[in-house]
C-alpha cells in the first residue's frame, strides 16, 4: 500500500467516523448525575464525565453533528467556485475572468471574521445553525481559491491547452472534465476544499467558545445542543485547576482528527 492510498483510507475512515457520529448524536444530553461528576475515562468510559456528571462522549457526538455537514458543504462550495474560475481561464472568457478578479479583490480585502460576525448579527434566531456562517466563510475564502485555480489553469496553457487537446480530437466534456479538472486542477481544488472544511470546523469552535465565554446564546447551533467548544471551555477550567483534563484531551483529539482529515485528503489528492 503506498502513502497516497494510506492517506485516502485514513481520510475515508475519519470522514466515516464524523458522519457516523452525526447520525448517532443524541438530541439531548443525559440527565446530570452530580454524584459522578469529574470521573475520568477509566472510571466512566469511554471519555469520562464533566462537572455535572454528563458523559463527554455525548457532547462530542453533538459537536460532530453541528459541524460535519455544514463544513463539508462549505468545502464543496469553494471547490465549485475554484473549478469555475479554472474553467473560465481555460475557456478564455476574458470578461468573466475580469469580473471574477474585481469581485475577488473586493471580497478578499476584508478580514474574514469581521464579515462573518456581521453575518452572524443578521441571522434570525431560527437560522442559528452553522451552515449560513460556513457558506459565508466559503464565499470569503473563494477568491484565494479561485485565484490559485485560475493561475494554475493559466500555467498549463489555458485556452491554448484546450485548443491543443481539441486538435487531438477530444470532446469538450473530456477536455474540461478529465484533462483540466481531474488531471490538473484536482490537487488545487481538493486542497482548497479540505482547508475550508477544516477552517469552518475551527470557526464554529471559535464562535461557540466566544459565546460561551461571554455567556451569550450561540451563533452556530441550537441552545439545547453542545458544541466541541464546550469541551475546550471545560478544558480551559482544567488548566486553572478543575479536574477536567480529560475534557481538554478529548477536545484536542477531536480538533487533531479534523486537521488530520484535511491533511489526508490533501495528500491523497496531490498531483502525481
Amino acid at each position: 500500500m503506498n502513502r497516497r492510498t494510506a492517506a485516502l483510507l485514513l481520510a475515508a475512515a475519519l470522514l466515516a467516523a464524523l458522519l457516523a457520529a452525526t447520525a448517532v448524536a443524541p438530541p439531548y444530553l443525559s440527565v446530570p448525575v452530580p454524584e459522578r461528576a469529574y470521573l475520568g475515562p477509566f472510571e466512566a468510559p469511554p471519555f469520562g464525565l464533566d462537572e455535572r456528571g454528563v458523559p463527554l462522549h455525548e457532547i462530542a457526538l453533538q459537536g460532530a453533528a453541528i459541524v460535519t455537514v455544514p463544513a463539508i458543504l462549505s468545502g464543496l462550495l469553494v471547490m465549485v467556485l475554484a473549478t469555475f474560475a479554472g474553467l473560465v481561464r481555460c475557456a478564455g472568457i476574458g470578461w468573466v475572468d475580469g469580473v471574477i478578479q474585481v469581485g475577488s479583490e473586493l471580497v478578499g480585502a476584508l478580514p474574514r471574521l469581521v464579515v462573518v460576525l456581521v453575518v452572524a448579527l443578521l441571522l434570525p434566531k431560527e437560522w442559528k445553525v452553522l451552515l449560513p456562517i460556513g457558506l459565508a466563510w466559503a464565499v470569503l475564502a473563494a477568491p484565494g481559491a479561485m485565484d490559485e485555480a485560475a493561475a494554475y489553469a493559466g500555467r498549463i496553457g489555458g485556452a491554448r491547452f484546450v485548443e491543443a487537446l481539441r486538435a487531438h480530437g477530444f470532446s469538450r466534456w473530456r477536455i474540461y472534465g478529465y484533462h483540466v479538472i481531474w488531471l490538473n486542477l484536482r490537487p488545487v481544488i481538493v486542497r482548497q476544499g479540505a482547508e475550508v472544511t477544516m477552517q469552518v470546523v475551527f470557526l464554529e469552535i471559535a464562535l461557540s467558545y466566544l459565546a460561551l465565554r461571554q455567556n451569550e446564546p450561540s451563533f452556530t447551533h441550537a441552545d439545547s445542543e453542545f458544541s466541541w467548544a464546550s469541551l475546550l471551555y471545560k478544558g480551559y477550567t482544567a488548566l486553572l485547576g478543575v479536574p477536567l483534563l480529560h475534557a481538554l484531551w478529548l477536545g484536542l483529539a477531536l480538533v487533531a482528527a479534523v486537521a488530520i482529515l484535511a491533511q489526508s485528503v490533501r495528500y491523497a489528492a496531490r498531483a502525481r
Partner: protein
Amino acid sequence: MVVALALPLVVPAIITAVLWLLPGDPAEIICPPEICDGTEALAASFGLDKGPAQFYLRWITSAARGELGNSWRIMQGFPVAELIWESLPTTALLALMALVPLTFGGVAAALGWLSSRLDAVWQAVGLAPAVILALVCAAFVEINFGARSYDGVAGWLRLGLGAGVLALADGALAATVMGTRASFEEEVKQRYIQIARLRGESAVANALPNLLPALVGQTRARVLHILSGTVVVEVVLGIPGLGELLFDGTLAQDFGVVLAATWAFSLLSALLLLGQAGVEVAVALWVRRAPRLAELPA
C-alpha cells in the same frame, strides 16, 4: 487602487443595509415605544428617521470629519471615536508584533537559512486553531498573574502571547515560510538570475525587486489574515483592541460601534491595498529606469 478607495465607502453602506434589514426599528431597540415616549426624538438624534440613504450620507460625512457619534449600547454616551482611538493602536501593535516572526521567517526562508525539513514542524503547529492556542495562553497568564492583570508585565505578556498565537496558528507562519521559499526558488531558476550569478551578484538581491510586488501581495494577505484572527485572540486574551470592540458591539447590536469598527478595519485594508499598489508602481518605475541593453558599456 479602485478597490482601496471604494472599500471605506462600501463597507459602511453594507452595514447600513444590514441595519435596515434587521427586524424592528433601531431606535425602538433603545427606546421601546411600549414604555418609552421619545422614540421619534431618539430616532432623529441618531439620524434614523430619514431612511438608510440619509443615515449613510450623514454618517460618512461625519466620519470624514472624525465624528463617529456616541455608543448606543455598550458604553452609552461614550464617544465612539474615543473607543476607536483607544483600541486601534492596540490592534495595530498586535498585528505588527505578529508580523515580526512572519517577516523573520520569510527572510530566513528566502536566504535559505531555514531547512525545508522544518516545514513539517511549521505545518503541524499551524494546524492548531487560534482559539485553542489563545485559551492556553490566557490560562497561563491567569495562573501566573491573576485574572485582572491587564497592566504592566501582564499586559505586555498578553500582547506578546497574542502576537505569537496570530503568527503561529492557522498556518500563518507555515504559509509565509513555504510560500516565500517557493517564490524565490521559482524565481532563481530564471535565466537572468543565472546570468547575475555568473556576474558574481547575489541571486536574492536580483530576484527581490521582481518578486517584491508578489511578496507585498502575500504580506497584505497575511496582515488581513492576522486582522481576522485578532477578534478571537483579543476576546480570549482580554486585549482591549478593535477586534474585541467589534465583538462586543456585535453582541449588543451597538451599530454605532459596529459601523465605526468595521469602517476602521476597512480603512486598514484600504491602506494595505494602497501600500501594495504603491510598491508595484515604485517597482515598475524602477524597472523602467534600469539601463537599456544598448546603453551598457561594450
